[in-house]
Every structure is written in structure tokens, then in C-alpha cells.
């Protein structure tokens, strides 16, 4: 009996304390109407956590340059961890919109989460800014007036590579990616332009997500002997794939092409296996502009690591908010006017200047890049001001 | 002589190469106590497990009321009227004695697929359970949890549960195991009264009780049938003396 009582005594205060914390934070958060609330919905745990960190860093850098102020109004961040779980997307979005009264919601990384968020936010007043998730539908079939994207559509990142591959003289190509939306969309976009340029995709391999046992597939590729291989992988999968491609001896024998995510934020972990890889993306580390150089220097100074694409996208989300608020002179309560102004904005991004398409996706240049000493260097501008076809969008 | 209720013909049970029961044939008559004795490992429990359907026979036939039931599922044995008790007390410890018997009675009386009727609303079940408890003399323990009654009482409850299933044949696997003399006598008396209504198959090591109770006895050795006869004939049979009784002082 004594023991039981003791256990009660220790557990109850823990509960009470945690619930008190909950209520006090929620009460505190409700009292100030003045500042502009920006909800940040990114993965800070799980497989995509690294991307979440970069985006948040970029965002903070942009806001800090302006002292967390736009048109005299303070900008406040409210962060939540999505854990990259689509099932939680709606609940968390509602939390930011209804509970925290966010004017802007920035997020997410994961396309599945993005679809859940859009579905929730479409009837709401808040404006959603997607700093990564590339699902074509987000600014295509599902496009919404209050949803903007500062990143890319998966179509944009892979379409130019098809032409480049044909230009390099490759006729037969094997494509490979994880079997999920982003990957499949990238392969489809690549195939679209590659076939149009006279090439042939001899085999399309879809690897179950998130499997990283690539050896059987690489052996299969070796038996097919294509002119080149086009892949989509990101994050940990990209690291593993590039390393495996090298250790299996295929590197240097069958050229490896990729959507830029193959070498984005991963080159340090990939080491020398990544050297020389060709990819296309809307950003490269060595873009020769003062904006990019300053951005990279500031980022390095503040966070003690090199900036990557995700940081750029987060940074631009921050710039977008500041410029939009300034364009309406701080009067963000009129959402229609705010959206109208946002559509007109030109963002001076480290990647180069861009505007938004009708579907609210950036019209941006795509670079052909090569990994040199762990940096994604510009080979050339592959397509200037590429606009996503926004298939199915009625805006 | 009364009629044959349960019968086994050429029953075999092999565990891999081990012959636990080999070509065993036996007949059980109504309203009699038929004891099965033999040294440890003779195959008595195996036989009981086969007769109660817990094991499937390797080959051979079990005939119950003139019909073969060898291939029936284990739960069908009880339904057709072959109840059994276990060597190791096998009751529902967290339930009351009454509830234990209710579980047993409900299968025969029905209602197991009534999802919304309170389990205590079926008076027939309660009645059958109480009468089973009364037969073994546990009426005043009805509301006590099975884990809280004495070991001897648990053995009685074990038998009460068999009775509550309204059986024709009762297979008892060492009902007196681990009991003191007085407790054993309670069971002996109980079995005496039950004899008039049921066909009872008794596996037991307590020879005193066996000789006192049995109408017929079967001696088993090494999974084989040695002899079946009346108690007096067994006692004087030299074959039995040699093969089993005389050599094993421990048993007596």
C-alpha cells in the first residue's frame, strides 16, 4: 500500500505541472493582437528534420535582416513539428490558424503534409507559403488563392534535364526513384522532355519508399547498360544511392544524372562519391551574384554551416512576407488586397530574381550544376525563367 | 451388464518415434467407475487426452454411443457429453466458483452468442451451476474467488465444472493428486454418489481409493493394454503382480 501511495504522489504532480504549462502558454499566446503572426510548420524530428532546420534558419536570417519588423509591425514566429506525418497535417494547421491566429503559415517539407495543409487552409484567411514541398498539384490541380510557393514544382526541377541529357548525346536512359509522388513526378517530367528530344527511357525503376537497399537495382542497371541513368533521391536516400553507385563501380562508366536534390545538402556525407555529378535545379551554390554571396556569407556567419537550397527557400519565404506586408503598408487584414500585392511582387532571391505565376509558383531559371569539391557549381543556365504548366489550375 | 457408452479401438498416438499409446482397445460401460492404472509414463494421460479430444489420434477409432467421433474437433467432445477434469488444477482463478460453473454450464444451456443480455439473467445457467456446486459440496463457496479456496476445494470445483457441462461420460485425471487422506475421502464419497448417474473413467495413483471405487480396472504398461478385469481379479492376477504391482513399491 505504501508503495502505491508513493507512486501516486510522484505521478500526479508531473501531470498537473505539464497541463499547467500547456494552459499558461496558450493563454499568453492569445493576448497580443498587434504583431504579425507567422506559423512555421516544419519537420524538426524524423527523416526530414535536416531540411526543416535549414528552412527555419533561412527564414530567421531574412527576418533578422529587417529586425523582425515590417511596416512597423513586429513579426512573431510560432513553430510546430510536423514529424513529416501527413495524418497530423490538418490538426497542426488548424492549431496555427485558429488557435495561434497566424496570418501566414510557412510549411511544409513533405508533399503529403502539404496536401493535407492545403485542404485545411483553403477555406481560411491565413496565407500559406510553401518553402519546399514540390508536389505539382499544390500549384496545379489543388491551387488556391491563398497558397504561395517560394520553392519549385517537381516538374520544374526535372524537365530541363531531359533536354540536357539529349544534348549530351544520350539515347537510352534508365530512370530510378523512390515510389512516391515527388519521385514519380520528377521521372515523368524528365521523360516528357527527354522523349520529346528523341531519347528513350528503356526502364523505369520505382524503389519502395523508404528502402535504401539499392544493390539489386544497380546490378539490374549494369545488366541493361544504358547510356546514362537519371534518378530522383533526396536526403539520406540520396547519400546512400550516390555512395552505392560509386562502390558498385558504376560511377565513371554509366553517367549519373539527377534532379538537383541528389546533391543538395548531402555532399558532405557523400564525400568524393558525389564529385562530378550533373544535376538540374533552381539554385546552385556558386551563382555569381552579390545577393547570393552576401546570403551565403551571412548564413555561414550566423549558423556556422554552409547554406543550401532549403535555406534559400526559407529565406525567400521570409522576404516574401516582409515585402508583402510593406506593399500593403502593414494593413494585412484585407487578405484580398494582400494576395493581389503578393502576386505582383518580385523577389530578389539568392537564386536570382523571380515572380509568381498565376498559380503562385515561382517563374525561375533552372541551372545545370556539377559537384566540384562538395559544392554545386553552375555549369550553365539551362532554362531561363521556366514556368510550371500548372496543369489543372483554375486561377 | 449395462450398455457400452464409450469405446476405443486400436487407438495409437505417436510422438515422432515415441509410441505413447500403441494399438489400445477398451470399452467403458454406463453407471460404472472404470479405473486406469499403470506406472508413470504408461500412457494414461495420453489416453485421457485422446478420449477427451485434446489430442488427435495417430490412428484408431473412438466410438461414442455407437458413432465414431475420432475426427471430431476437441470442443465437440465436451458438447456431445464427454467431460474431463485435469491432472493439474485447471480452473478460472480470477472468477468466483459460481462463475466457473456458469462458464461450464453455459455451453450446454446456450446463450453464448447473446451479446446484449446480462450474463446473470439466464436463470437456467445459474441453476445448473448451483446444482453442480451442491453436488460437490461447495455451495457456500459460490461467491468466493476460485484462487482463494483451498487446494482440495479447487479439486472439487474442477469436478463441479465437469458436472455443470451435463456430461454422460466423466474423464477424471488424478482427481486426488496431491491431497491428504481426509480430502481424498471427500472425493471418494463424491464419486460413489456420482457413479449411479454417469460413466466415470478414473485415472488415479491412490490405489486405496481405486480399489475402493472401481467396478472395472485396466492396467497399462508402456502405452499398451495389459489387462482389464474386476478389482478382485486384478488384485490376484500374477501377470499384474509381476509386470507392475509387485515391482513398484512406491505405488502402494
Amino acid at each position, binding site marked *: 500500500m505504501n508503495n502505491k501511495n508513493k507512486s501516486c504522489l510522484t505521478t500526479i504532480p508531473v501531470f498537473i505541472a505539464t497541463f499547467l504549462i500547456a494552459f499558461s502558454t496558450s493563454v499568453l499566446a492569445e493576448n497580443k493582437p498587434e504583431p504579425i503572426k507567422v506559423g512555421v510548420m516544419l519537420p524538426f524530428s524524423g*527523416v526530414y528534420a535536416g531540411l526543416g532546420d535549414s528552412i527555419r534558419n533561412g527564414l530567421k536570417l531574412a527576418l533578422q535582416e529587417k529586425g523582425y519588423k515590417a511596416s512597423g509591425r513586429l513579426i512573431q514566429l510560432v513553430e510546430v513539428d510536423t514529424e513529416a506525418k501527413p495524418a497530423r497535417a490538418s490538426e497542426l494547421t488548424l492549431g496555427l490558424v485558429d488557435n495561434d491566429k497566424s496570418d501566414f503559415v510557412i510549411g511544409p517539407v513533405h508533399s503529403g503534409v502539404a496536401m493535407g495543409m492545403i485542404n485545411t487552409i483553403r477555406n481560411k484567411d491565413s496565407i500559406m507559403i510553401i518553402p519546399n514541398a514540390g508536389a505539382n498539384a499544390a500549384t496545379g490541380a489543388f491551387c488556391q488563392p491563398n497558397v504561395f510557393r517560394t520553392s519549385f514544382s517537381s516538374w520544374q526541377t526535372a524537365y530541363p534535364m531531359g533536354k540536357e541529357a539529349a544534348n549530351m548525346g544520350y539515347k537510352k536512359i534508365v530512370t530510378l526513384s523512390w515510389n512516391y509522388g515527388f519521385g514519380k513526378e520528377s521521372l515523368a517530367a524528365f521523360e516528357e522532355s527527354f522523349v520529346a528530344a528523341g531519347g528513350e527511357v528503356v526502364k523505369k525503376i520505382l524503389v519502395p519508399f523508404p528502402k*535504401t537497399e539499392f544493390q539489386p537495382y544497380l546490378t539490374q542497371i549494369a545488366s541493361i547498360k544504358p547510356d546514362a541513368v537519371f534518378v530522383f533521391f533526396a536526403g539520406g536516400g*540520396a547519400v546512400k544511392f550516390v*555512395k552505392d553507385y560509386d562502390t558498385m563501380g558504376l560511377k565513371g562508366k554509366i553517367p549519373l544524372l539527377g534532379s538537383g536534390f541528389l546533391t543538395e545538402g548531402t555532399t558532405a556525407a557523400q564525400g568524393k562519391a558525389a564529385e562530378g555529378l550533373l544535376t538540374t535545379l533552381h539554385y546552385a551554390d556558386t551563382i555569381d551574384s552579390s545577393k547570393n554571396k552576401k546570403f551565403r556569407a551571412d548564413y555561414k556567419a550566423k549558423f556556422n554551416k554552409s547554406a543550401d537550397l532549403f535555406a534559400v527557400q526559407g529565406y525567400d519565404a521570409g522576404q516574401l512576407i516582409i515585402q508583402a506586408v510593406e506593399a500593403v503598408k502593414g494593413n494585412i487584414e484585407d487578405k484580398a488586397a494582400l494576395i493581389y500585392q503578393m502576386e505582383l511582387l518580385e523577389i530578389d532571391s539568392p537564386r536570382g530574381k523571380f515572380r509568381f505565376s498565376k498559380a503562385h509558383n515561382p517563374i525561375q531559371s533552372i541551372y545545370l550544376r556539377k559537384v566540384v569539391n562538395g559544392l554545386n557549381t553552375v555549369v550553365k543556365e539551362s532554362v531561363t525563367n521556366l514556368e510550371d504548366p500548372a496543369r489543372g489550375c483554375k486561377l | 451388464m449395462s450398455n457400452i457408452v464409450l469405446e476405443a479401438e486400436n487407438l495409437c498416438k505417436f510422438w515422432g518415434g515415441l509410441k505413447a499409446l500403441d494399438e489400445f482397445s477398451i470399452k467403458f460401460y454406463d453407471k460404472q467407475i472404470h479405473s486406469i492404472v499403470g506406472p508413470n509414463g504408461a500412457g494414461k494421460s495420453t489416453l485421457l487426452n485422446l478420449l477427451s479430444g485434446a489430442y488427435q489420434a495417430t490412428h484408431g477409432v473412438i466410438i461414442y454411443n455407437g458413432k465414431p467421433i475420432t475426427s471430431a474437433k476437441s470442443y465437440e467432445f465436451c458438447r456431445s457429453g464427454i467431460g474431463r477434469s485435469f491432472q493439474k488444477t485447471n480452473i478460472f482463478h480470477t472468477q468466483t466458483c459460481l462463475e466457473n460453473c456458469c462458464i461450464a454450464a453455459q455451453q450446454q444451456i446456450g446463450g453464448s452468442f447473446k451479446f446484449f443480455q446480462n450474463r446473470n439473467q439466464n436463470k437456467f445457467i445459474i441453476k445448473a451451476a448451483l446444482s453442480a456446486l451442491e453436488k460437490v459440496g461447495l455451495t457456500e463457496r459460490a461467491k468466493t474467488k476460485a484462487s482463494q479456496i483451498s487446494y482440495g476445494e479447487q479439486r472439487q470445483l474442477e469436478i463441479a465444472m465437469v458436472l455443470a457441462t451435463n456430461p454422460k461420460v466423466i474423464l477424471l485425471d488424478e482427481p486426488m493428486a496431491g491431497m491428504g487422506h481426509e480430502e481424498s475421502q471427500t472425493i471418494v464419497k463424491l464419486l460413489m454418489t456420482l457413479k449411479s448417474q454417469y460413466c466415470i473413467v478414473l485415472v488415479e495413483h491412490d490405489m486405496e481409493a481405486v480399489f475402493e471405487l472401481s467396478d472395472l480396472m485396466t492396467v497399462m504398461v508402456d502405452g499398451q493394454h495389459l489387462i482389464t478385469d474386476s478389482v478382485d481379479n486384478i488384485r490376484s492376477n500374477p501377470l499384474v503382480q509381476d509386470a507392475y504391482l509387485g515391482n513398484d513399491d512406491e505405488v502402494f
Partner: protein
Amino acid sequence: MDTYFFLVQLLNGVQYGLLLFLIASGLTLIFGVMGILNLAHGSMYMIGAYLAYYFTALTDSFAIAVIISSLIALVIGLLIERFLISHLYKRDHLDQVLLTVGLIFIFNAVQSFVWGNDPLGVEVPSALSGSIQLTELLEYSDYRLFISLICICVAVAMYYIINRTKLGMLIRAGESDRAMVENLGVDISKLFTIVFAIGVVLAALAGIISAPIVSLVPGMGEHVLISCFVVVVIGGLGSIKGAFVAALLVGIVDTFASVLIPEISSMSIYLLMSLILLIKPQGLFKS
């Protein structure tokens, strides 16, 4: 597929299978002796890999990193058993499972806090960075062969320990009859401590030596855990021999399914497990 590529794929399958065995062996050992389903097993794999990364960077030597990391894993295993799990032996097995779920949360948080969330990689040690030419295109790296060798060594060592030594005798006895071991006058709690620590070290060791060929990302342990379950169950819970056979089976089936029937390759190992359990409900080698 011609014979040559068939053989290469077979090699892929065997190599993957051996690695699976190394990870799963600790899980099945702990379950067999202690009856505990250690869900935090995958987390120890992850921690092992990150420790290898950390100490390789610190000491510039993969070999030293292997030794230090294994020792740390041993200490972690001992601490968990002594201070947490040993309090739960008299409780329901599900309570022990719940405890290991709590451990998963803690390990994930520690990983994220200490090493951050970017994908990390470990360079293959230079002594093993060469490779063997298989076809005109394909090579097989020495390091992968080295891993296979380690896995086989562990398998042989475990076989020897369990079948030939006093500790092994106790382990086998502990699997079949706990009460008997106690009656023999052996301190069963000490046996449990040792077995749990060995299991944890095996998981960590798998993480450590595979660090150079995988990418280190948050949550890497959970993916591995499910594959381990499949291996352990197919082999028969608690059977080291079973785990070995099952790991090879899973590795080979997974490899060939990836190439030959890509439409259902994501389900292949689960299909295999379901089929085997339907035919042999206790797994292949249940004692």
C-alpha cells in the same frame, strides 16, 4: 537475367542477409532468453552508427571508433538492464515493451540533440577502400565483403558460445526452463544482465560497421527494426540458427523480388513471413 547477373544478385542477397542477421541476432537472443521484445533494438543500431561517426571524426581511425563505440554500447546495455528492465521482470511482458518504446523516444531525442538532423556519412576506412571487379561494369567493394566476413564470424562465435560454453549452456537452459536454472544455483539476474548487454552490443555493432555504407539519418533505426522482426519471426523466436537462415532467406527474397516482381516488392518479405507462419506457425526453427 543471365547466369552471371543471377550470381551477382545472389551475392547481393546473401550480403544483405548477413547484415540483417547481425542486427537481428541480438533481438532474438534477448527475446529467447528473457522473453522481452526489445523495440529499442533499432535505436541501438542507430546510436551505434552515430557513435562510429563521432569517434571516427574524433580519432581519425575507424578501428578505434569501433572499439570505443562497442564499449559505450555495452555500458548503455548494462545501465538499461540494471536500472530499468530489471524492475519489470515480475510484470506483464507488455509493460516491458512499453518501457522500450519510451527508450526509443529518448534515443531519438538524444540523436537529434547531439548530432543534428542533416544526413551524415562515414568514409570507408582506407585499408578496405579497394574493390574487386565482378563484371566489366560492376565492382564489389572490399568493405562490403569485410562486413559479410564479420557477420559470419559473429554467427560462428555465437554458435560456439551457445553450444560449447557454460554461458551458452545457461542461455539454452534459460530459454527452456527458467526455474531450473535458478534451482541450479545460478544467479539468473546476472545472466539476464549479460544477455541483454550482449544483445545491445550486437545491435550497436551492426550500426557501427554498416556506418560507412549507409547514410546516417534520424529515424534510421525504425526502418531496420521492422526487417529484424520479420527475420526473427521467420526463424523462430529465440533461435539463433533460425535467425541466420531466415536472414539469408529474407535477403535473397527481397533482392530478387526488387528486380523480378517490382510491383509487389515492397510487400515481398511480409508475404514471405505470412506464408511461412501459415505453414509453420512457430517459425522455421522453434525449439
